[in-house]
């Protein structure tokens, strides 16, 4: 049961493992033995019902922990919330109030009554736009730079200390500089996301290059591949899983940072939407936003995980 729980938490990891087990060395062994086992036990046990019952019982057993355990957690969460609301913090909206707000907000997510009054769907899309732009720029800069850093000791020496110095700084600290340089909030927010995303991409890409086994570079040398050819045929494909891990981390953090950045910059976006609703004392709306942000975060992560799956290779 605990493993099911772990599987749920690490959706991406589970997918990768699945692929390793299914696509590569021992395809579907586990799957094929299961029905056989079922028939075996059915035959051995004279009191067993027909196969259909067995299949249903099997499904039941498999899905119960996956569905029921998280439901219990959600139930406890709701219970605690209701208790907190009714005792310590009566200002907190009740779950019912939040549900009503969710129905209201998500019922018409894409209305547009001018820049100060747009549906939550627009808010999310504006934030996503900034995140993807900053993230995309960071990938554009970070991947080549990371490849160079990984491949060349001089580059590592030149860039390493700067990266180490800047990496632990909260990306929000860069916001004033962005505002100063760009003199506009939107590019500044994108700039903050760029700074957020570039470190994980850069560092993972460089680590990926350095982790390339000596065997692959030997092959490249024996074949006398040119620089560009070696990059295209060996360096980049070998590093791809690392690059995508970096991108996955970067996107996750970027999606967290955008909320804070937008609270500071204002405008349309889920971060400022939350801040605005706080000023309106509409706490129910804030809680709905939290869930929406979480769901979008899952979708983003799942998206990168899917791309990663395409480029992963089984170690040979």
């Amino acid at each position: 049961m605990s493993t099911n729980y772990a599987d749920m938490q690490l959706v991406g990891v589970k997918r990768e493992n699945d692929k390793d087990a299914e696509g590569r060395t021992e395809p579907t062994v586990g799957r094929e033995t299961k029905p056989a086992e079922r028939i075996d036990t059915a035959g051995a046990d004279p009191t067993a019902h027909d196969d259909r019952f067995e299949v249903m019982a099997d499904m039941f057993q498999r899905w119960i922990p996956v569905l029921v355990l998280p439901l219990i957690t959600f139930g406890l969460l709701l219970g605690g919330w209701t208790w907190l609301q009714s005792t310590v913090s009566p200002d907190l909206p009740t779950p019912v109030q939040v549900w009503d707000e969710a129905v209201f907000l998500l019922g018409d997510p894409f209305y547009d009554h001018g820049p100060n009054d747009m549906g939550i769907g627009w808010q999310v899309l504006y934030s996503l736009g900034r995140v993807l732009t900053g993230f995309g720029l960071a990938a554009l800069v970070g991947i080549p730079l990371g490849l160079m850093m990984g491949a060349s000791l001089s580059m590592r020496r030149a860039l390493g200390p700067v990266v180490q110095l800047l990496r632990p700084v909260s990306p929000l600290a860069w916001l004033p500089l962005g505002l100063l340089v760009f003199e506009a909030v939107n590019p500044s927010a994108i700039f903050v996301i760029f700074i957020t995303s570039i470190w994980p991409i850069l560092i993972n890409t460089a680590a990926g290059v350095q982790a390339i086994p000596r065997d692959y570079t030997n092959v490249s040398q024996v074949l006398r591949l040119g620089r560009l050819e070696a990059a295209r045929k060996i360096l980049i494909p070998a590093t791809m899983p690392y690059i995508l891990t970096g991108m996955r981390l970067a996107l996750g953090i970027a999606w967290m940072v955008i909320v804070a950045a937008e609270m500071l910059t204002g405008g349309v976006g889920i971060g400022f939407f939350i801040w605005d609703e706080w000023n309106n004392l509409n706490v129910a709306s804030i809680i709905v936003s939290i869930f929406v942000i979480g769901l979008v975060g899952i979708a983003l992560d799942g998206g990168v995980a899917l791309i990663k799956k395409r480029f992963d290779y089984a170690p040979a």
Partner: protein
Amino acid sequence: MSHYLNIDYLDMTFATPRGPLNVLNNVNLKVQKGDFVSIIGHSGCGKSTVLNIVAGLLRATTGGVLLEEREVVEPGPERAVVFQNHSLLPWMTVYENVRLAVDKVRRGAPRAERDAWTLENLERVHMTHAKDQYPGEISGGMKQRVGIARALAMEPKVLLMDEPFGALDALTRAHLQDEVMKLQSELGNTVLMVTHDVDEAVLLSDRIVMMTNGPAATIGEVLEIDLPKPRERLVMADNAQYNHYRAEVLRFLHERHKNPESEAA
């Protein structure tokens, strides 16, 4: 006179944190065209270092290698290597792995010709059926076959093999040894193979080069294997001459140049 492959006065010293370490000392070896030469010795005696210097992956501290009177200064496909751990690129299919080499050595040839040459080499090692599979999906023996196909596709002047069957189980190893023997008799390749398997060395080689233990390892003895080819594994098992050669190598390895680790124990 100059031979096909000359390994002359090789000295190799690595810089280590504990000072310079002399691995090879004055290694000299001549190989004739079409010869199958094995280098045998205990682990750590530097036999792979010799091979890597011939491959051009390492530069000797002093001395050098001449192939057809040209000095070896860098790696190249005319000295194709079958690596111990196959070194297939896992993101490419079996076909693509061989094709990568073919595209390199047959640059400028029509696409159809390169395709045909790729398939021909896969067929030589009986791997055509798995051409669209990835290295992670095939067995160790199959991977090594593909590694051999890739090396053969380069039509090397010298085929270098670095313990090519070391990671395989005994049965697969025997099977692949037979195939390499067959391929070599068909194609007449010049082969330099590093091994620590006595039977493998005697069965496959025209000459066995026995190396002393390191540091400062050098060639202890060279044994000519004067057995008619093709050799049959089962026939050889009862052949007095074969067993004599085998005993020679064993005596060298276990009497005169005992494994330094077993001596310490």
